[in-house]
């Protein structure tokens, strides 16, 4: 598809919900290594709640309203670090797409740039600190480039996903600076960051959805 409409967006949240239900145990154990094991629980809870909320709201609400509902719902359901950061991301994306009827390549670039900036502001991490931000930044950059060079949505999301996957792999060599993982210091080297893994899951499902 070339544009994600409001009704598509509702189905995309369903896809995210299914994905995080499937990846629940994996994320629990990943967060368990240098964290508190809650990531699988919070992500499956918050995406399930968001999917239900946007379904209840219905496509007539439009892209921006649906994203806002999703973000507000997530903030309420899972106020963990990642829960609140992803909620912030969706709320900022909603603001960035206030007037949009659908999400094409240009809107996807706005969406992810706003998402990244929101997470950066809220979390105060820098790129390279081994967080979610390490995959959000390449996603946003890649989509901005794709929009400038007029790439199709499918192609753009595919490129962004690849960039995110590379960035996730790169988090392995970093030392965690934030959150519970920071206490583990050198022990975090060799492990991929849990929050960044969630970032890859989100963009990957979006790519698959738009393919």
């Amino acid at each position, binding site marked *: 598809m070339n544009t994600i409409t409001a009704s598509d967006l509702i189905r995309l949240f369903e896809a995210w919900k299914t994905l995080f239900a499937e990846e629940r145990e994996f994320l629990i154990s990943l967060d368990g290594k240098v964290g*508190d*094991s*809650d990531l699988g629980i919070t992500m499956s809870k918050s995406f399930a709640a968001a999917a239900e909320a946007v379904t209840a709201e219905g496509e007539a609400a439009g892209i921006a309203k649906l994203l806002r509902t999703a973000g507000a719902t997530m*903030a*309420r359901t899972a*106020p*963990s*670090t990642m829960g*609140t*950061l992803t909620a*912030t991301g969706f709320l900022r994306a909603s603001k960035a797409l206030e007037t949009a009827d659908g999400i094409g390549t240009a809107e996807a670039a706005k969406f992810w740039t706003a998402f990244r900036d929101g997470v950066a502001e*809220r*979390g105060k991490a820098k790129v390279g600190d081994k967080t979610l931000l390490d995959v959000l930044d390449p996603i946003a950059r890649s989509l901005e480039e794709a929009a400038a060079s007029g790439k199709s949505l499918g192609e753009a999301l595919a490129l962004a996903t690849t960039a995110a996957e590379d960035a996730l792999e790169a988090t392995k060599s970093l030392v965690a600076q*934030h*959150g*519970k993982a*920071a*206490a*583990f210091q050198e*022990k975090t080297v060799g492990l991929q960051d849990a929050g960044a893994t969630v970032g890859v899951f989100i963009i990957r499902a979006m790519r698959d959805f738009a393919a």
Partner: protein
Amino acid sequence: MKKFLNDPVNFVNEMLEGIYRAHPEVTYVADDKRCMVAANRKPGKVGIATGGGSGHLPLFLGYVGDGMLDGVAVGGVFQSPSAEQMYQVTKAIDQGAGVLYIYGNYTGDIINFDMAAELADLDGIQVKQVVGNDDVASSVVGEEHKRRGVAGIFFVYKAAGAAAAEGASLDEVTRLADKARLRTRTMGVALSSCVVPEIGHATFSIGEDEMEIGMGIHGEPGISRKKLAPADAVVDEMMDRIFAEQDYKSGDEVAVLINGLGGTPLEELYILFRRVSLLLEERGVKTRHVWIGEFATSMEMAGASISILHLDAELDRLIGAAGNTPFFKHIPA
């Protein structure tokens, strides 16, 4: 898991129901039991709010009352409350004089309190924040901003609460809270793990003869894990780290908090205090105030922490002032 509970999912809410049934001095707002406020408002007073995960009683809920806090939002066990909950508490306790947030340095809490402060700002409520980071073990000198907040936050509550009760402005309450924060250091030691009800097994494992110096109150790794040493030696090691960061001269004064993490008998806390008191005495430092008991726990974790506040004249007055909350009562001598 050996706990008195019903469905683990209801652990926090049933605990809260017990608290509201026991203590009519506190109530809740926004139809949400996790948003606790003092039953009586104090017109014109600066509001003080805190919050964080459940499982640390008497932290956080226990300190709402006279001379201490006005409101608190709690989340699930070891989980932050939401920005919305903090915002609701903020709205409820603002008396036109603004609100101070005092909470521990954990990413989840920070992000949510920041968000709540933004929401409150939109309503024209002035919010300031003081983020407790007293845990010496959690980062080196020079990187204090990375340190976790643990039991020493009690002193920050006490100083700020007394100042607000005296009628100080938001700026002044914030200044005093921040001063108490900067002059407080805590070292902890854990002997056993805790069990989060919804998880059902120990958060971490530790040998039958081991202790972990510097472990965090959610089981975050500490400085060193080694064979349990005699109590005096454990205190010496902990106090060495605290003394290294607090510059005492003879005649200086302190407040001391010996905090049990949940599973350690009070007898042992007094044995620890005995040594702390001796070490302070050796340096000519006077212990002006001391509290010994459970002030910030990790469920049933066995272990203890030592917090020392290096007093000055105004902190001495505030720390010694009266306090009356469901979990903490202080009657000045």
